[in-house]
Each structure stands twice: as structure tokens, then as C-alpha cells.
């Protein structure tokens, strides 16, 4: 039986070399290009996706280790692009080039899933692995706080 992986709710056969990092399985094999290549070594966070809800760096995780796991990418974070973080990102005009932002949003979503109202320090710690070379950090922080507020009101 072929091994498979569930990406954004759809099952996909892992019919590649199992050592291939999830990033390239997504980008080159499935052509889901929302997840970005930045460093290839888990240093910049541009490739962040969720494995069973938790943020991981897809550039260093072999796809064979993810058999049966549920992967969420930026394309699958919300049905209509209306996750509170996505809305807060728009509301604060966060992106400049935007290349790192999928990773930033996915990382932040993972943070908010376990810590609904993070302090500024907790945001810093959680987001420390995600580089933005355009320098949008101030707006990222603001957007995360705003999304956390929205989420707290929803509960």
C-alpha cells in the first residue's frame, strides 16, 4: 500500500524519494507554491507549515516522516483567507515584498493555537525563527496582538 500524507484536507500519495523535505514535495511535486524556500536549513522560517497543528520548518523535515500526518499550508489555513491573522495582516498592511509572510502567519497561527493571548515577550520568542528582510516586524507584532484580541472575543 502506498504511503500518503494529508495536505489541507486532501490525501496525497508520497510517491517521491522519502528523504525529500516536505517543502519540495509541496512546491515541486504538488506545485503548492505558497510555502517558500528561504534557507534550506531551518534558519529563516519562510517554509513554515503545520503538522497536526504545530508549526514546523518544512525545508528540513523528510516527507517520509510525515506518513498519515495532517499538513496545513498557507493555502489551507482558512477557507476564505479570513483567519483572524490573515485579516489582521491586511488590516495592518504588514507585507512589503511578502515573501516571508506565509511562514510568519503559519508560525503565528501555531502560537495562538496554544497561547491565545501571548505577551510581547512570548510573541518575540515564538516568532524569533522567522526572518523578514524587509523589516515588517513591528507590524507583525501588532497584527498578532490584534488577531489574539479578535480570537478572545470569538470565544
Amino acid at each position, binding site marked *: 500500500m502506498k504511503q500518503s500524507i494529508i495536505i489541507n484536507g486532501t490525501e496525497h500519495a508520497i510517491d517521491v524519494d522519502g528523504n525529500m523535505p516536505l*517543502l519540495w514535495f509541496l512546491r515541486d511535486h504538488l506545485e503548492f507554491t505558497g510555502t517558500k524556500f528561504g534557507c*534550506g536549513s531551518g534558519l529563516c522560517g519562510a517554509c513554515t507549515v503545520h503538522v497536526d497543528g504545530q508549526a514546523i520548518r518544512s525545508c528540513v523535515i523528510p516527507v517520509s516522516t510525515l506518513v498519515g500526518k495532517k499538513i496545513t499550508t498557507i493555502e489551507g489555513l482558512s477557507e476564505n483567507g479570513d483567519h483572524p491573522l490573515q485579516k489582521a495582516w491586511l488590516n495592518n498592511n504588514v507585507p512589503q*515584498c511578502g515573501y516571508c509572510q506565509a511562514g510568519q502567519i503559519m508560525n503565528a497561527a501555531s502560537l495562538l493555537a496554544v497561547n491565545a493571548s501571548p505577551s510581547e515577550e512570548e510573541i518575540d520568542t515564538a516568532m524569533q525563527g522567522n526572518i523578514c528582510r*524587509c523589516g515588517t516586524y*513591528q507590524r507583525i507584532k501588532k497584527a498578532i496582538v490584534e488577531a489574539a484580541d479578535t480570537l478572545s472575543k470569538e470565544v
Partner: protein
Amino acid sequence: MSISNISRRNFLKTAGAATGGLVIGVALPMNALAAKGIMKDSGEELNAFIQIDDNGDTIIYCGRCEMGQGISTALPAAVADEMEADWARVTVKQGDGDEKYGPQATGGSASIRVMFQPMREAGATAKAMLIAAAAKVWKTSPDNCFAESHFVINKTNNQRLGYGELASIAANMPVPEKPTLKNKSDFKYIGKALPRHDQGEVVVGKRIYGVDTKLPGLKYAAIVHCPVLGGALKSLDKSDALKMKGVSDVIEIPRFNIPFGSIGGVAVVADNSWTAQQAVKKLKIAWDLGENVSYDTKEYKQQLVRNVEKPATLASERGDIKKAFGEAKHKMSATYTGGHLSHAPMEPNASVVWVQKDSCEVWASTQSPADIQKVLGQYLKREPKDIVVHVAMAGGAFGRKFKCDYVHEAAVISQETGAPIQLIWTREEDMRTGYYHSINAQHIEASMDDQGNVTGWLHRAAFPSIGTLFDPSMIRTPARSLGDVTDHLFGVENMRVESGDAKAHTRIGWYRAVYAIFYGFAFGTFADELAYKAGKDHLSFVNQLFDNNKNKEQQAQIKRAKNILAIAADKSGWDKRQNLPKGQGIGLAVHYSFQSFVAMAVHVEVKGDDIKVLNVDCVIDCGQVLNLDGATAQMEGAVVMGMSLALSTEVTFRGGAVVNSNFHDYPVMRISDMPNVRVHIPDSDESPTGLGEPGVAPFAPALSNAVFAASGKRYRDLPFKPLSV
């Protein structure tokens, strides 16, 4: 049908006088476009930039390259404002590489300076033709009509016609000779805080960058270059690489002997990027490292310091510096240095190229599509216009993607294999075999009288010049590259500027802010050192330096520089700095570059060697602002980039090769270091000037001055806290 039939009319040719007589064809006459095969005779574009469908949907093209600086929002919004378009009805499209868009090479913070006026005129022209069309329908005078939010309205009876309904009628209207531009008070988009047109796509992962291009039959390539500039391939054993499953080819890339050309290398072609990257590691390559093999930046920097601390080659001189020094009450000297920098945009160099018998198509994140057309035209022995360049959104660039060596390489591989090729450089290749901001040293000696007036200024700069790409025999920076020193706004009657020897041993390539990085640092920091020596505070000392400038042609600039410095000081609480807790301090700096003025007040806390930046007040005067939010974002980003280069980033060479390899040893700023940045933009009616780059320069000197104020420790070398690699 769309607006068409503006044929045989010289639609809109505008001289961009502000940039020195540059003539920009905003649109060529339709018949000329048809003759060139650019569009069919019937024509579907009002000009190269605006297209209105008969349902009113409007496309505005952006000819300048987008890399995050927001030009593809700012310029189309200016068009939309002048044509009274409803921004919600406008789709922005990126223009392909094509001369019909005017100059597309996007650098030097020049887009707004070059394109603002012609784009406004294009919009105003469209509006005038739409109004004329409505007047014809209503059998009234155009003066009796006005345009508002995608409609033309009849003043007499309030009848309305939509732009869609009017589009094809407008196409038969005469083109106004000189369209009337709006008054500033009537602007709806220009000068407002408009969100980027594409951020909705960004947050759902649908924005397509150069690296995201996919084509049927696409093959993936990875590359390795000789680690030392000027080296060459000695031997290559590709057998292990070729044995890997999914690997189809190993291609030797020749050196392109042009300034921004590929240095040559070896590429592997595979089914996917990862396999290609793995296979590159299996290549057994011996390089002939060549003459730069002894390049060592630690030694080289020391040599530069020696070269500026002794007499060097004269670049310019005014007054009598000997006399000034002879009569001095105080004398002061200092030497400042900085290391190589890598642009390191988050999106590594990437492109797709497909060379076929009768065509060549390129999809690339690039700042310079015309250069790709020219270089590939030469390489493939075809006309530049036959090289189709689709300009992709760049995931950051900062000057790196002005140099399109990665595109040349993809073209070679595609030519050799016949397949469409996506070549992505790894981060390591980008870090190790890229283009680098100049390593540099600057030595300043100044004399002062007993009133703290600076009477003499000797400035020696040494850095390998960008010009070495064009003339490798160049052994020192030419006088023209020291113009920003000679023409600095500080008023010093007696000045001598010298250029120290500095041969290049790697590829020097423009990095965001260029010379302003090190000139801004040297001038801004030395002014603080002089102020201290004279027993004055920075603000009053620098104002005095400005006031001593009697050059009539610089008075307007001095006024603006002083104004923003005053605002920065005021916003930062400069007057109350004595009340700051022990270990805290505020530093100021102001710098003029890319025709804009930026001042910063940096508030730090220093504990031992630890520098924590708390607040940054950043003030920019770039004349009229197109997008207030975009301008604010550019300043926030410039602070972050300035902070990276001030504190931590440096590219180190040993044995001719770069030692750094990725973000662990090229530590760009991360979120926990982010200070509270407050951007202040005074209203201005001056012509719009540079925005993307000028914010970078003042940060490092303001930080050095702040740390000195807080701790008494003076940093003169960038980065202040280099990582040992």
C-alpha cells in the same frame, strides 16, 4: 471592446525633465506599436499603461519592477487618481520587459522621480478623453462635465455615464495636448495611506514570485560556482551526480564577460530542486582558484585603514586646508570602517527560462528586465525584443536582482537541454558567490576654531568600487564616486577629499543605499565626535555646521535637513535626555541621499556590551509623498536593515572565498530586536524624491552616537558586534 484607435496620433510623449532631459514614451503611437508586432492593429490599450474594458474594468500597468517597495501600488494609484478611476475597479498588472514602458531598470530610488509626472499625465489624458466622450453623447461642452469615481457626470442635469460605457467612444476623441493635472487638495489616492494592491494574495499564499513559476515539462536546476572570483573549472567528475535518480544532466556554464554576467559554474538538472541540490554536492570539482585566492577581509580592512591614514590620491579640494589646520584651536581625527554586506533577500536568486528554436521566454524576479533582454539577445544571437521577459514579483531584492547572472545561467541550461529550466540558487551560493556591498575605510581629520566652527576637513575614503565590474583594472574609487563627500551639506570652507587605493577581489554590487551607508556613518558619527570635542550638543553643533554653509545653491537643502533633524530631536525627547535613566542615551543623525532627507533619533539602553535599541524616531522629507503607508513602511524597513548592518551583518572572506553561508553566520535582525519605530513625514509640496534607500544611512551613525551618549563607548567599525566566523 476597449478603448482603441488612437492610431497615428503621437499619443503621449513626455519629457521627464526632472531627470535631465530623459524622454519617456509613455506610449508609442499605435501604428508604431503595431509595426513592431507589440500589438495588433485594432489595438486594445489606450497606451502602454491604461486599459479600460467596456464594462469599466480597468487595468493599469506598472512598468517598474516590484520587490516590496510598493511601486506597483504607488504609480498606478497616481494614474487612477488623475483619471478619477475607482481604485476598487482597477487591476494592477506588471508590465513585461518592454521599452514601451519607459526605463524599467529599477534602482537608485528613482522610480517616482522618473515616472510620477508621466503617469499622472497618462491618467489625466484618459480622463479628458472620457469626459470628451460623454460631452459628445450629451451634445454638451466638456466644461459642463466632470469625472468622479469611474463616472462622468453632467453638471446641468446630473446624468451619469460610466467609464465602461464611454470607453470605446473615448477612443475616438482627440488626445489633449497638455492634460490638466489635479490640485493637491483634490487628490483621492496620492498622498493617502493606500494598502498594497496585492496583499490579499500575499496572505493566502497566492502571490506568485519569480521562484514560483511553473510550466509543463519544467526541469529544475541547482548550481555551484567557483568560490573565488576569477577562478575557473579545472576538472569535473559528474558520474556520481548523474547516477542519482531523477538527475538528467550536468551542464557547464561559461563565464559571461560582462559587468553583471554569470561568473560561470556547474549546474545539475533534475526532476525537482531538492534532487538537483543534492546532486550538486556529489559533483567532484577541482577549481583553479586564480589570483584572488589570497583575499582575506580582515587583512584587507587593515590595509584600507593604512591607506586612508596616509596621503592618498586627490579627488577634490577647495580652500586652503593646510592653513586651516595651522590656525586650528582644536584638531580631531577618526577612522571608520565597514565590511562587505550580502543583500540576502528572502527569495534567493531564481528564474525560469525556456529557450526554443524560435523563442526565448524568461520569468524572473528582476530589477532590470532590459538587461536580461540585451544579454540573452547577445548570447543567443537574437534581437533583444525577441527575448520575452515576464517580470515577476521579487521576494526582496535590495539591489541584488539588478544583476541577473542567475537568469543567464538558466538560459544556458535551457539552451543546452531544450527544456524549460527553473534555476534556484541555494542560500549558500547566494551568500558565497554573490555581489557585495563594498568593504571600506574612511579617515577624517578636522580643524575647529575656538567657537566650535569647523574650519578644515580632510576626508579620505578607500573602498573597492562598483566600477571595477566595468573596469577591472581600477585600483581606487574614482573622484566621481566621492561627490557625496565633496558636496556634503556641512559647511566647511577648506576641504580636501582623497581616494585611497582599494583593488577589488570580489564582485562589488549595489546594496540598498549604496555609498550613503558609509558616508552617512562617517559624517554622522564624526560630527558627534566633533561636537563632544567642542563641548557642544549634537543638535546645536550640526545646526552650526549647516549654518556655516554659504553655498547659495545648497540653502534650500540645508533648510530641509535642519527641519527634519529638529523634528527627530523633538519627537525623541532630546531636550529631556538628561532625565533618562543611567545607561540610556539618544543619538541623532541626518543624511541626504537619493535627493531625500532622513533624520533619526535612536534611543538605546546599554548594559555592558549589550545594546538594546528602544525607540527610533525617523523623519523623512522626500517631497510629495505618493503613498503615506508605503512611505512609512519603507522607513520601518530601512531602520531594520540599518540595524542589521550596524550591529551584526558582515561577509567575511578567507582564502579568497566567503566564509559565511547562511543565516546562522550572517545574522540579520530578528523580531526580538525590533525597536519601537515612529515615522514622521512632514507635509511637502516639493517634487517627490527617493524613498526606498535613503532611510538606511542615518541609523548606524545615530546608533553610534546613542551608545556613546549612554555609555561613553564609541563604535567606529560596522558592524559594531561582528560574529566571529
